[in-house]
């Protein structure tokens, strides 16, 4: 048996156009949309794997193929050794998924949502009730146990949705932007639970646009853009791709009036002002960094200076920016 929970080989998903648009495409006017374009990767068991990319990168489509919601146009994908096209039922027996949009049985109460989900995954009534009680405690939804989900806030509905995957022991969990709508405390707790599940040997595949989440959680990251792989590796490997990117943070006693112009002249990757603090990401030679800090500090009275290497956000911006409309795939 393979050591990998997931194996994806040159996967392509093209959304074909229908009707008049399809006829136009056949006439060579415009082909279908290549939402996933030749993606290959594998994920060992027990790993937390992050799929990152801007809106429309193809993350959700890739997840839909892996969870048997969509058939790939070409290529292959196996989960726990089973092919997504040939053995979809075997795959569904081994996965649980949190969709991007909130998905819950709105007419049922919280407890019945959990019990119904458990029943689909073959748990007997007694075991399902025992687990529901534990999961409701974990996600702080016990007090809503008998309330219909339609009467809960958006955040609580999300809790119910995420809580469901902890009801079962499927070896692979897919999470599509799981933390949307969660408050920071619960999000932190949920991330802790996910780490615990991974430590038990469950493989977790998540998509996110919250890069700090991926930075904190993922053992391995794949960055996608326009359906293609842009970069792949663990955080350190990805940071190497962005060698020479530095983050400078300066807090002034009073923000200098010309600071925007001064920063623009440095041609930063990105920058922002938060109160009297400016944060700038620059791609420069190491020797220039201190010079730049020195130049900027002459503009006003500086209270705090911080210089650090690139964050995942810097890498993400660097790798997915499209100055000439093209992206160059990089291997970490």
């Amino acid at each position, binding site marked *: 048996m393979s050591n990998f929970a997931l194996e994806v080989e040159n996967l392509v998903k093209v959304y074909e156009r229908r009707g008049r648009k399809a006829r136009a495409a056949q006439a060579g006017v415009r082909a279908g949309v290549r939402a996933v374009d030749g993606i290959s990767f594998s994920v060992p068991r027990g790993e937390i794997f992050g799929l990152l990319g801007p809106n429309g990168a193809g993350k959700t489509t890739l997840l839909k193929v892996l969870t048997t919601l969509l058939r790939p146009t070409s290529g292959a994908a196996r989960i726990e050794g089973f092919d997504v096209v040939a053995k979809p039922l075997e795959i569904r027996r081994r996965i649980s998924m949190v969709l991007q949009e909130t998905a819950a*049985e709105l007419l049922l109460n919280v407890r019945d949502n959990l019990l119904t989900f458990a*029943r689909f*995954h073959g748990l007997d009534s007694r075991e399902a009730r025992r687990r529901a009680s534990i999961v409701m405690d974990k996600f702080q939804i016990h007090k809503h146990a008998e309330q219909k989900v339609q009467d809960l806030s958006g955040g609580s509905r999300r809790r119910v949705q995420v809580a469901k995957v902890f009801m079962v022991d499927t070896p692979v969990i897919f999470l599509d932007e799981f933390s949307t709508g969660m408050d920071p405390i619960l999000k932190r707790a949920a991330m802790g639970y996910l780490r615990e599940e991974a430590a038990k040997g469950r493989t977790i595949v998540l998509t996110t646009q919250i890069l700090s989440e991926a930075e904190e959680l993922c053992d391995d990251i794949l960055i996608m853009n326009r359906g293609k792989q842009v970069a792949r590796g663990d955080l350190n490997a990805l940071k190497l791709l962005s060698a020479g990117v530095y983050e400078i943070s300066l807090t002034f006693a009073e923000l200098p009036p010309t600071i925007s112009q001064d920063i623009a002249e440095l041609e930063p990757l990105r920058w922002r002002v938060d109160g009297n603090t400016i944060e700038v990401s620059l791609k420069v030679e190491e020797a220039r960094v201190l010079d730049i800090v020195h130049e900027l500090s002459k503009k006003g009275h500086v209270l705090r200076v911080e210089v650090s290497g690139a964050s995942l956000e810097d890498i993400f911006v660097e790798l997915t920016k499209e100055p000439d409309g093209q992206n160059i795939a990089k291997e970490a």
Partner: protein
Amino acid sequence: MSSLAAIFYRESKIRATNTTFLFFDLFYPLLYLLVFGIGVNAALGVRALSPGMDYNSFFLAGVLGMASLGIATTSSWSFFLDRDNGIFFEMLTYPMRRSEYLLGKVLFNICIGIVQAVITVAAGCLLLKIHLHWSALPVLAAGVIGGTAGWFFFYATFALKIRRNDLFNSVVNVSYFVLLFASSMFYPLAPLPKWFRAAALVNPITWQVDVLRYGSIGLGAPRVLVLEGIAFVLFALASFAWAVRSLREQG
């Protein structure tokens, strides 16, 4: 089998959240029979169709056929509710075949259909003095079960293909008009104009209602009914295949 039970469990849990819903599920055909049947019988003075057979007896099968359509459209409409709740796509990742998803729903619908039929037939016998053709009850049961399944698969396909709730409602309204009135549901076909009768004869609701009529009051020629029964089974199987295919195309 466990996935069918899980779907059944889910459907029953949802249905149990609203007792009004449950009441109309079970008593709607009976109310139709009592209000419409008695009204036509009394107000329009419909003469006896054959010795010992009044309009209520004739209309009993029509009401049961109409109930199959009602369950089918309500259950198909729930796909829209599931889509709006986001649960529809999540359910498609649950460990079950697409066909099991549909069969689980049908199993629940059939149970509702059988209870509905028992209530309606019992009340028809007790209150309206309808004389049942007892030896043909298995045919009646087959008509209820097959009809409930066939019409659900038929409407489920539209619900899955059409992404717009309002468009689905229009399809249901138009199809109801055609299926109900161009059929033997409300009136015998013999006195109708030739073109009308021809349209009714190719209407699957006529096939189902004729089987139900034989199963309830023993009216109809067995040889024709066998053909109609086979035609309806083929219609149901084709609808099932189409519905499974439509479900596979979701995502």
